[in-house]
């Protein structure tokens, strides 16, 4: 039933069931793979992930997937990062000192400070909003069908701080401040929240992203 080849990168850092299931719900049977040829031949790639940043980078290195991921992104085809898969796209993380990331988007990944107002990890549903500076991009992104202030499901202790404000697609309040909850940078779309765990609105994000994947494929052919 699949008209596009979507690969979920399996670098042994997370349960891929729900990501696969969300794709299936929108009519796309995505394939999990840790093989660079499969990744390079895909129409679109999803990088999921939960767990530690440094473990993730080490696994990607062991599987020899760092350059294939970068090459794929540079080819201009649609690429989606989820949760840790979003954080890995940045230059570096402050977890365990400093760990270098994939550096596809300039910026750093930092930890929430636990205090009396917030618990760490941040687990649960929080709203996503447009940043003041990025009004135009929402409607051109997979979020276009999501209302302002819609609640999405988050599980994380770290969050990304993009160097360039124009990469920030949405922000989310936590405690006294807000953090970047999704980014858009060229062909990269990435979310700190889990759209596959954010009920029907989250599934809708997958379906919008997969529609864009079809469009891009159509243009290429």
């Amino acid at each position, binding site marked *: 039933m699949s008209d596009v080849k979507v690969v979920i990168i399996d670098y042994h850092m997370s349960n891929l069931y729900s990501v696969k299931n969300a794709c299936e719900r929108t009519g796309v049977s995505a394939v999990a793979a840790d093989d660079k040829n499969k990744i390079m031949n895909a129409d679109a790639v999803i990088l999921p992930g939960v*767990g530690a940043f440094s473990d993730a980078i080490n696994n990607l290195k062991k599987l020899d997937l760092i350059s294939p991921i970068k090459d794929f992104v540079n080819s201009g085809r649609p690429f989606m990062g989820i949760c840790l898969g979003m954080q890995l796209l940045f230059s570096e993380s402050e977890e365990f000192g400093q760990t270098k990331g994939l550096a596809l988007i300039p910026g750093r990944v930092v930890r929430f400070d636990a205090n009396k107002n917030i618990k760490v990890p941040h*687990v*649960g549903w929080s709203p996503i909003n447009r940043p003041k500076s990025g009004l135009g991009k929402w409607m051109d992104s997979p979020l276009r069908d999501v209302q302002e202030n819609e609640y999405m499901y988050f599980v994380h202790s770290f969050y990304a701080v993009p160097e360039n404000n124009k990469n920030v697609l949405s922000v989310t309040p936590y405690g006294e401040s807000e953090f970047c909850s999704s980014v858009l940078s060229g062909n990269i779309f990435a979310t700190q929240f889990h759209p596959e765990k954010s009920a029907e609105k989250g599934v809708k994000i997958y379906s919008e992203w997969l529609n864009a994947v079809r469009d891009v494929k159509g243009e290429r052919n």
Partner: protein
Amino acid sequence: MTIRIISRLDIKGPNLVKGIHLEGLRVLGKPEDFARHYYRSGADEIMYQDVVASLYERNSLEDIITRTAKDIFIPLTVGGGLRTIEDIKKVLRAGADKVSLNTAAIKEPEIIKEASRKFGSSTIVIAIEAIKQPDGEYLAYTDNGRNYTGVEVLGWAKKCEELGAGEIFLTSVDREGTGQGFDIELVRMVSRSVSIPVIAHGGAGRLEHISDVLKDGKADAVSIASMLHYNFIKINKNFSGYEHEGNIEFLKSGRNNSRVKNTGMAQIKDYLISKGIDCRPTVNVGALKR
């Protein structure tokens, strides 16, 4: 801070059951029917607890997980009888998002470290079954509050956090199924002492109980069973497929549990919002029912 409402479903074999003080189980229906209903009505998460830890029936639990996970796009936590890393892997592969450990963690705390390292802290929930002792001390039990361990609750909760647990699922066995309200003292004691989220469970009978444990008990999430189950039973008339599972006369009679006030997810959320408690509203969910 947004709080969560978690629908807890106790499972025995293929059935959803419910007891009092975790005992005296009654068959209520098919877990996946209830889970689907709670998902559609705006539950923030679903929790499945295999109450008989039926290791010999594991395949049936895994089938239930897979059937459920296919239709619900919110987090699903599964607990009960998970002893090893391999057991955890199996339920995650079947479609669970998180696992809940109790006995295995108390027997061998290092499994928390190993499992959180392997699957991510956010995947590992530690269930603590607390019983208040005559001297006021809270002790952790296992096997649905039947087995004494001598482990003191607060110290154990802190240790779980230290070892990498992502959340604490805190049951007051004394209150469980009674509808008398949460043990606020217990919840507050644990929630204030750890920085990971604490889910309060056991005792919800009225809407005020839920707001009390969030405001006074400082819970980060609340787990509800009876209040929601008995509400759905009134709607759900699908008794097929589990007649062989013992006595369902109670179900067919359409009676309620008199200890709890039946309520729907939307009523709970609306009530909490009216009390100034931040939670994900249900209005946005219902619109997309299929």
